[in-house]
């Protein structure tokens, strides 16, 4: 412990390698990675697919075991299992991720960003190389602790092996991860999905959308500036919901909602309850100016894809408007039709995916122009065969976190 404060003069690359050498190697890996980015131009640096990623995983873990078991006296392995190598790789991974946290990961017009691949860090050679060193350190020290067979290593192993599994399965799993989306229309079976590159993919089953449903909140009431057209009250946040009988206050205006219709149509100079496609909500409000005591009333409506909105001018400067209702919940009542003639009924909703034959099926979106009258439901299908391994990693780390809470820095004190 604390080997570096023996202030003994030592030369670079002399045994054992310390922080200077570790950062030297780390920067070397990063520079190499950037060279590869500049001169070996390919979009996907490393995407192994089944079965090659499984071969890689088995080979890599076996290699780590072999290195630890039979080459633990070699300079390289000794360095990798020591603190400077771990800390330097944590720091360098952090630095590259920080680049990702600052430079938007979208196509860029800046030459430096483009050439060095700073806008696709997750598939950048520099990141992958340094992550590889990070994982190698993590893997080797995990093996070291596992082979010690001691109960006191329990928390250590949960945290370190958990992170190793989650990371490596995440990286290697990318090649096998399939994310497709499919447009499903009411009353018509669909089985052609598309992937991120817009390739069409035929599914082994079809979706039949019985009904697409949206629940909406009531619309909200807002005070807008007639000149700029922007909401002038409460920074546009926390607006009041339009509910019959409510009274709200905006500056010197007292606004009472006398009537609220959730679906309505303009008939003459007023709104009446109407239930057609595209019938917008409307409200009859009376506005009292508390400075002049004058009262005026009128209709407001949020409008819809078929009908225009209607605002109510209450003074030279201000008008009352009704916002488009926000969505509370949207769901698809679907049947999955299999080739064997089976019909599986389910209701998909945000946060409530459905599992079928290794696919997780999600409610993704709908025709947002039409809103609650949408006849289109967009579903997402995700297949990630590496998920169980990632979950094992995640749950090990969760258990490790509880252990950590309980032990606190006693973990260090015992050393």
């Amino acid at each position, binding site marked *: *412990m*604390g080997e*570096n*404060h023996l202030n003994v003069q030592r030369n670079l690359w002399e045994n054992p390698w310390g922080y200077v050498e570790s950062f030297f190697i780390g920067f070397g890996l990063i520079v190499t990675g950037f060279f590869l980015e500049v001169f070996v131009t390919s979009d996907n640096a490393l995407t192994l697919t089944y079965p090659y990623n499984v071969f890689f995983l088995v080979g890599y873990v076996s290699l780590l075991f072999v290195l630890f078991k039979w080459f633990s006296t070699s300079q390289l392995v000794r360095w990798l299992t020591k*603190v400077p190598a*771990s*800390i330097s790789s*944590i*720091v360098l*991974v*952090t630095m590259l*991720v920080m680049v*990702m*946290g*600052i*430079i*938007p*990961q*979208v196509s860029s017009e800046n030459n430096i960003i483009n050439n060095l691949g700073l806008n696709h860090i*997750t598939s950048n050679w520099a990141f992958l190389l340094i992550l590889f060193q990070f994982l190698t350190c993590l893997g080797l020290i995990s093996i070291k602790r596992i082979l010690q067979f001691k109960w006191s290593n329990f928390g250590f192993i949960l945290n370190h092996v958990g992170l190793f599994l989650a990371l490596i399965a*995440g990286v290697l799993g990318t090649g096998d*991860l399939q*994310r497709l989306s499919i447009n499903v229309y009411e009353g018509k079976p669909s089985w052609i999905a598309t992937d991120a590159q817009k390739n069409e993919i035929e599914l082994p089953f079809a979706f039949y959308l019985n009904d697409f449903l949206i629940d909406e*909140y009531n619309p909200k009431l807002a005070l807008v500036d007639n000149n700029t057209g922007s909401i002038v009250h409460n920074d546009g*946040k*926390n607006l*009041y*919901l339009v509910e019959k009988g409510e009274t709200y206050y905006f500056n010197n205006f007292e606004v009472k909602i006398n009537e609220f219709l959730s679906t309505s149509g303009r008939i003459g100079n007023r709104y009446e309850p109407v239930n057609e496609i595209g019938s917008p909500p409307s409200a009859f409000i009376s506005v009292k100016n508390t400075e002049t005591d004058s009262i005026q009333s009128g209709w407001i409506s949020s409008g819809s894809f078929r009908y225009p909105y209607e605002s109510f001018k209450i003074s030279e400067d201000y008008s009352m408007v009704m916002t488009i209702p*926000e*969505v*509370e*919940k*949207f769901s698809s009542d679907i049947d999955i039709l299999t080739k064997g003639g089976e019909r599986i009924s389910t209701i998909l*909703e*945000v*946060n*409530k*995916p459905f599992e079928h034959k290794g696919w997780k099926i*999600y409610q*993704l979106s709908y025709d947002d122009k039409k809103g609650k009258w949408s006849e289109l439901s967009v579903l*997402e299908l*995700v297949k*990630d065969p590496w*998920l169980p391994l*990632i979950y094992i990693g*995640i749950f090990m*780390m*969760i258990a*490790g*976190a*509880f252990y*950590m*809470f*309980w*032990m*606190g*820095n006693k*973990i*260090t004190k015992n*050393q």
Partner: protein
Amino acid sequence: MTWIDFPLYSSITVILWIFGLLFLVISYKKTAVLKLANVLFVLGWTVLILFVVKLWIELNRPPMRTLGETRLWYATFLPLIGFATYIRWKYKWFLAYSIGMAGMFLAINYLNPETYSKTLMPALQSPWFIPHVLVYLFSYAVLAASSIVAIKGWYDNFKGNFKLETLKLADNLVYIGFAFLTLGLLFGALWAKEAWGHYWTWDPKEVWAFLTWMGYLIYIHYRHFHMNNTKQALSILALAFVVLLVCWFGVNYLPVANTSVHTYTTY
């Protein structure tokens, strides 16, 4: 039972807690009073639970759809986490800290009655919402406390009477905070899988949450192996907290902000 009764119930709770906090302060001089403080905390908490249960029955659904309702849950669970930490670590001030935070959320709800009925978007309507935010809240609070301890350490260092005990307290707080930080990150991943189809998408908020995690990871590893380099350790702790603040508030001002899905204003 609806939100109309909230002012009554919340004021009873807050008054009981204020007296509890007073007794807690006194207990630093007279240890016996601590029991009384705990009884008052538990009583206040029971009143709050009563309100939550009745509200739940009245609404006929779990009250976790609106911001006001989620704040109610923070106020309910923060004292629990505080007690768990107190039972394990015996930091009295820590109990006061979590009770104080819970009281703050009750006050926010009390002062913003119009937000009771605020809408909540579908992606946020999930049983993961409250645990995810709650463990983060708690973690940030503990890590903030560790930074305060670090500032004290720096000050003592400057004055020339630095005590190693100060850094050990900071260590323990970092371990507790880091455990909750890990839970927040992983709960977030599990939730993302249910809501967006993938557990990790390198969304800017996720990137900075990961960076925060890495920052404290560096601190823990550095402290583990270099017990005596106290100044460096304090610097790392300060830097890690800066990253945490960027993650909490700063992400919205970075060039990456408009690619984030975490742009709802939540507490």
